[in-house]
């Protein structure tokens, strides 16, 4: 049985949200929603898994902390200890108060950039990538919902989408 994707355009986010809820109650999965701004609460309705990008940021941050610690220990304590301004540098713990600012900055640097790079790669957003929205109006004021279904169910679903207030329906 061949699959078909129904593209339904809405003029507003509330009818789209209501329709998505109805589809969920009928056990029909919404494939994706494209909108000009984040619709709050849509993730739970269409079953978007919670992103783990914040966990990545934490791991990148810890990495930054470790790298900075290692760098300063190596340069100031191990490789070439220098007594600057009477600040003892014979052991890491003696010198550590002066290292805190850079440790903090390196943590933030790695967490922020690591997370941003992960975000752009995970969403596959890079210079030169083709626009991902199927309809250019969805960055302006239209809301697009895509439902993938079997050929035989399409009339059923189309009725739900239409009743929910879809202004245009097309098949891809």
């Amino acid at each position, binding site marked *: 049985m061949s699959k078909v994707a129904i593209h339904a355009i809405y003029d507003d986010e509330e009818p789209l949200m209501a329709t998505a809820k109805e589809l969920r109650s009928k056990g029909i999965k919404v494939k*994706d929603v494209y909108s000009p701004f984040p619709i709050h609460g849509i993730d739970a309705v269409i079953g*978007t898994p919670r992103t783990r990008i914040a966990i990545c940021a934490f791991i990148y941050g810890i990495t930054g902390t470790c790298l900075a610690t290692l760098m300063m220990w190596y340069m100031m304590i191990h490789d070439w200890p220098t007594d600057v301004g009477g600040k003892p540098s014979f052991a890491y713990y003696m*010198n550590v108060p002066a290292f805190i600012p850079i440790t903090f*900055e390196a943590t933030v640097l790695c967490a*922020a*950039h690591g997370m941003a790079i992960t975000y752009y790669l995970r969403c596959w*957003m890079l210079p030169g990538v083709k*626009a*991902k929205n199927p309809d250019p109006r969805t*960055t302006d004021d239209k809301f697009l919902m895509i439902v993938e279904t079997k050929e035989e169910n399409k009339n059923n679903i189309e009725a739900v989408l239409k009743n929910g207030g879809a202004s245009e329906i097309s098949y891809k």
Partner: protein
Amino acid sequence: MQHESEIREPLILGNKSYHQITEDIVKPIEGKATKYWYMLLTVSVICFLWGIWCLSYTIGTGIGVWGSNNGVDWAWDITNFVWWIGIGHAGTLISAVLLLFRQKWRMAINRSAEAMTIFAVMCAAIFVLLHTGRPWLDYWLFPLPNQFGSLWVNFNSPLMWDVFAVSTYFSVSLVFWYTGLVPDFAMIRDRAVKPMAKKVYSLLSFGWGGSARHWHRFEEVSLVLAGLSTPLVFSVHSIVSTDFATSVVPGWHTTIFPPYFVAGAVFSGFAMVLTLLLIMRKIYALENYITIKHIEYMNIVIIVTGSIVGVAYLTELFISWYSGVEYEQYAFLNRATGPYWWAYAAMMTCNVISPQLFWFKKLRTNLTFTFIMSIIVNIGMWFERFVIIVPTLCRTFLPSSWNMYHPTFVDIGIYTGTIGMFFTFFLLFTRYFPVIAQAELKSILKSSGQEFKEKHAAHGHSHDAAH
């Protein structure tokens, strides 16, 4: 949809639809530039070019062409550096701290405030790179192995902390700003007609499509970046203040410096945001988005931070007397009554007295008055940094090394040049970038838009009557 109390004033005026917001935001980009824009750009570019000439002259001849001398070895360079870095702080405060506090009024101003941050930090970087004297050796600032010319850098030094703080601050602000810009670039891309514009905005928008999954990640990334930027912004000016506070120079060696610098930074930054926005909303007809209420909110931040700065000045004075250390006492006596008393007086008037006028609602909602005040605050904050640096250094421990400082035309030229550069970049930004975060703004239209609020209020009343 989120509902908002009727008592809160609307943040988007007029009868706007989502499409109307799009139209209003792209108008400056798709339309022709006005003659005011060209006039401002010409003046800015002339200042910028003059600054480049003075900068080249400095590099070619050496920093002997500045007014800095053997006593006053930090002068306009560090004054301007601290001033510009401070200005940048408002952008991060608006975009990060106000995001964490879920302040919706940030959405109309965060984009341009962050742009301001980035350009201000670029201006600051010029001074800090030049003041080393031999800028071609500035790579020594990085932790490079000894065979590159020097020993390992000294991580005990606040100047080194500064290198890490400022470069982290700049790059993280840039990423934060750009991540927010991507959906708006996509909006311009999707409606662009000219092939060149289509191509450029396609490249800039990274293929953004706005699927629910991507919005979900986008929001998470914004939130975490805000959470990271908040301590970052406070750390940056704290570290800048330790450049002074960890020295043993009387008048600098004070623990109050970090909070006092941060408050001053936010204070001057908000003033600069006001200067820029008051011009921008007028030229691009953005009065419906950057409303009087937005201006009032910013003026309230100015009263709060201005008062913190005022308290800090008085605390410093009190502590210098109460400490019983005569060097410390002299440092402050010299600031207030010494050869640079006029700079101290300007600082006190502009920063402590004048912002208190904003307690009057009439004044803080008056645009002309706000504009004049924003300039006064910026002048005042420049004098604050000047007062900390020059009067202190011109009267240090050895009276034999006491001398006055006079800026040369090169000092003035480089400073003017950075102001020119700042405005050139900002004007180009307003012409080619979406100056308001339209995607975010659309998400609050139904809770904070005037039309929707009024409809909701009318509906609410009829509902009450029915009971």
